[in-house]
């Protein structure tokens, strides 16, 4: 038994259909900066959510300073000095920096807030952090970095013991990142323990004392930072072989069915160029939030692009709404099936028929019932959807069957291009493999498929060609024969912004 400051032992957490954490143990000494790394879905977020009280572990214990601690709510973790700072800040934009820092802790005099004392103490905390920040200005006027500092200062007022930071540098400039690191070092000097999650390995080597690698919910290893190289860490993160069975890749043709050219949208997409050919599955890889979601939404008309062209079979087309995409025979299977793919309160047959009502199932003004019935039955049979009856409300179906309903809906429209986002997220292994085979069968029939996935095995197993996105750009493209997990991860973790600004400067 170690006498570490923070210890989590044997933490296990199940979500429906997936074990997010499997017997993970970590021990962190006081005042250490511990980096937590792993691919998407490795279990980092789950682990810190358990530590911060947002989730309950199914098994395992958490010890702080030799005491076993138990809590059921984030508030109780806060009282123990465990503070998590996510990308979404927990600040009141209308209030000033000082008011936010002292929120709920403001000194009182004569029953009302002692403003002078409040500002004095808020200023003191910022001094301790060694940062310059006007405490009178309202938080809504601050930059992301300044808000982050305010959040940290707020935590410091409350006897901060453990600070958890989840991708804290995602929206920061290089200079801001450097000053954040200064703050983290200051905190460390004051005995605060920091858990630092980042995909950017460069930062981890700059700021962390030690690194813990997670993979598929399991602990790979914990190492002092001096004992490992960047390559070691990458290897630990991806050291998995392709276990699943994927259908053979033998369907791609040369005929371009979809082409996007110089697509721009807001801050999320920058001059994206992309081609999909008939029978081809193009995988879009990358870390989460690099513009993949925006790319598919622009192509299917869910949001309107700022500039750029979309070509179908070589012809430029106008796509301003999903209705236009449907008419251009472009189907869309979204990643969040409950929020975007299904009408949960309606029966399976209505959901399956939804995108085909107007074009395929209508005669004159009405839905041809006989045609609708055979249409739905054929799809239910083809995809082997398990239903109590065709009119079963989809809310009550399993994740795999719900996903098949969404797939059936788009199969029914006989698309020529299918945009698929996280096609197998949160569904069981059996359904997963079925969906993969359905996708390849579609490709065999000549459908061009663009697949966004954050699961590396899926990208490698399904794609004929892989493009990697980072910072809203396509930073790499490779045929599947040349693609490896390491190559993709290397491209995805390249700090595009860093290199660019270096070039500019």
């Amino acid at each position, binding site marked *: 038994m170690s006498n570490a400051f923070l210890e989590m032992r044997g933490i296990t957490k199940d979500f429906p259909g997936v074990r997010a954490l499997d017997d993970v143990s970590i021990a962190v000494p006081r005042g250490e900066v511990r980096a937590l790394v792993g691919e998407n879905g490795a279990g980092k977020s789950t682990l810190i959510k358990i530590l911060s009280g947002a989730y309950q572990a199914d098994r395992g214990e958490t010890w702080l300073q030799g005491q076993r601690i138990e809590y059921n709510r984030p508030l109780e973790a806060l009282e123990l000095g465990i503070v998590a700072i996510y990308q979404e800040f927990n600040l009141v934009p209308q209030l000033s920096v000082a008011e936010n820092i002292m929120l709920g802790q403001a000194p009182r005099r004569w029953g009302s807030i002692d403003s002078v004392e409040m500002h004095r103490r808020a200023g003191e905390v910022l001094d301790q952090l060694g940062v310059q920040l006007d405490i009178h200005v309202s938080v809504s006027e601050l930059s992301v970095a300044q808000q982050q500092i305010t959040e940290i200062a707020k935590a410091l007022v409350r006897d901060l013991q453990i600070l958890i930071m989840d991708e804290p540098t995602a929206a920061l400039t290089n200079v801001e990142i450097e000053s954040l690191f200064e703050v983290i070092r200051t905190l460390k000097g004051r005995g605060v323990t920091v858990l630092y999650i980042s995909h950017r390995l460069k930062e981890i080597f700059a700021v962390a004392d030690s690194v813990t690698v997670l993979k598929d919910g399991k602990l790979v290893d914990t190492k002092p930072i001096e004992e490992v190289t960047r390559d070691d860490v990458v290897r630990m993160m991806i050291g998995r072989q392709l276990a699943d069975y994927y259908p053979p890749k033998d369907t791609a043709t040369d005929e371009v069915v979809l082409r996007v050219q110089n697509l721009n949208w807001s801050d999320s997409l920058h001059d994206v160029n992309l081609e999909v050919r008939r029978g081809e599955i193009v995988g879009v890889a990358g870390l989460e939030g690099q513009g993949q979601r925006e790319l598919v939404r622009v192509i*299917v008309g869910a949001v309107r692009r700022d500039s750029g062209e979309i070509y179908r079979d070589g012809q430029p087309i106008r796509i301003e709404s*999903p209705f236009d995409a449907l008419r251009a025979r472009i189907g869309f299977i979204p990643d969040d099936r409950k929020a975007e793919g*299904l009408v949960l309160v309606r029966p399976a047959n*209505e959901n399956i028929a939804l*995108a085909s009502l107007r074009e395929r199932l209508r005669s004159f003004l009405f*839905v041809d019932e006989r045609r609708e019935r055979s249409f739905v*039955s054929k799809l239910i049979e083809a995809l082997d959807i398990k239903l109590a*009856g065709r*009119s079963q409300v989809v809310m009550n179906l399993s994740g795999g069957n719900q996903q098949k309903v969404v797939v059936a809906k788009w199969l029914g429209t006989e698309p020529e291009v299918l945009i698929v986002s996280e096609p197998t997220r949160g569904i069981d292994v059996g359904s997963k493999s079925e969906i993969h085979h359905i996708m390849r069968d579609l490709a065999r029939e000549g459908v061009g498929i663009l697949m966004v996935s954050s699961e590396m095995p899926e990208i490698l197993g399904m794609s004929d060609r892989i493009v990697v996105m980072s910072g809203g750009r396509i930073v790499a493209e490779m045929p599947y024969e040349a693609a490896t997990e390491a190559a993709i991860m290397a491209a995805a973790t390249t700090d595009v912004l860093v290199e660019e600004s270096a070039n500019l400067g």
Partner: protein
Amino acid sequence: MSETTIAAGTQPRARPKGNIFLRIGPVYYALVTILAIGTISQPTFLTLRSVRNILVSATPWSIATIGQTVVILTAGIDLSVGPVISMTNVIAADLMKKYPEQAILIILLCLAAGLMVGIVNGLAVAYLRLNPFIITLATGTAVQGLALEIMYQPSGMVTSGFRQVSRGTLGPIPYAVGYLLILYLVGSYILKRTPYGLSIYAVGGNETSARLSGIRTKRILLSVYAISGLLATCAGLFIASRIGSGDPLVGEPYALDSITAAVLGGASLFGGVGDLWGGLAGALIIAILSTLLNMNNINPFYQWIIKGAILIGALAIDFFRKGGRQ
């Protein structure tokens, strides 16, 4: 794909499992119960004359409830129903008194006015994304003012031919029964058996999913408010025909009553769930309840309390049904 050859292999339409008595919505039991109470408490309740009266008096409720239900199916609400009834009622009575020979034109004018209000509501909800509760409250308030401007106290007169709209009978059966049957049959058919109707359910159940499935959700939203405006106008015209004159406040109870009827009938305020027949049963319950309370000389204030309680009860059921689903 050829569609017809597979028909032989299709499964029979699966029906929800469970006891037939459980599958029938609770609103129909409530309707039977209230009929039984009426029959027991009032010996004259089930006479042909009284049944006919109830049906005719229930007609404007039943018509307005169709529009309200369709709006509620899209997770919206239409509070302008009552004022639209009042406004079209007074326009009809006022103009028909002045220009009795132009009855048809006046009816068309009223329909256009009601449709306009509906379109304003629909544009605001669909394209400006305004909260339906607030926008229909606002347009309703303005329309109510307009009604009072046209006629500040009951007056006006409709033509004798127009009176036959509500008073005419075919043998023993009032025309009104025919209107209701036609509206409900056509309405239900449209809702359940056309791309448009099924799209209404989809938009109400999940607007994002519906949009991403290629449904033009804004047009759907716009249309349901337009329909509600049109049907409220029909209700207002029917009332004008029945009372023979105009009353600028006659529509007052209808917004809340039509909501109560729709929700009693199983429509969920969260959208995507409900049908017209339940709303009809709900409207009949409200009409019968009003008749019964009047027959038993219950003070109108208590009627309000009772109606309020019924709506709260129906909303509670809606809430718990949703809670049970998630």
